[in-house]
């Protein structure tokens, strides 16, 4: 059965919701509700050992891995900005 998913892609935080029984209901992230409620930080990270992290875990390791972490990317959308991480664009 097909469904509509609504995504709020924010600069700092993002969230997703589906329509259920005629009402929108937010999908909590795997880490559960945090400071930002059911939303999660708009972070993506590629760790040195090749892991892909998103959301809260990606934010937590941002300080140790600044070159492998992407944040505030919404600001760059629509421009020809390219992110280069570990030799990949």
């Amino acid at each position, binding site marked *: *059965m097909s469904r509509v998913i609504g995504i709020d892609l924010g600069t700092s935080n993002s969230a997703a919701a589906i329509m*259920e029984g005629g009402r929108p209901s937010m999908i909590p992230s795997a880490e559960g509700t945090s400071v930002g409620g059911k939303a999660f930080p708009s972070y993506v990270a590629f*760790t*040195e050992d090749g892991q892909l992290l998103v959301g809260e875990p*990606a934010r*937590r390791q*941002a*300080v*140790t891995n600044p070159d492998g972490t992407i944040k505030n990317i919404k600001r760059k959308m629509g421009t020809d900005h390219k992110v280069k991480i570990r030799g990949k664009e």
Partner: protein
Amino acid sequence: MDMESLLQEAEAKAFENLDMAKRIQADYDNYRKRSQKEMEEFRKFATEGLVLELLVILDDLERALQTEDAVGPFADGVRGIHINLKKLLEFKGLKEIATDGVFDPRVHDCLMTCEGDEDGRIAEVYQKGYYLGPRVIRCAKVKVTNATKKNGEGE
């Protein structure tokens, strides 16, 4: 319009309605299952908020007992209170997150980095992290080593 096409139209309409009814029923079933699950989760973790707030007091007690002045019978009494509080919280499912070893972004929150012989080791713990049952309720706030910094290649 002849009877044949009228019948066809009515059949198509009936099929469409049945399909919609099935979808709504499935939608409702999912909703019911999820609310039930959420309710169970809520019951299970209703104490989570309270435990999270009590952790601050647990931290304070630990810090107080680490000072030089924490000697003598009075300090022993406070030590006893600390043990009691910790035992009570552990009975509710509280478990400390290990911070000896490698930095793991799923349970540790890196606040800053420092020089080190290798990458990604925990150098210092600013705030202990805890699990409540299987869930992380507070990440451990830590300082992480960075080998590049030492070799002067960073920045």
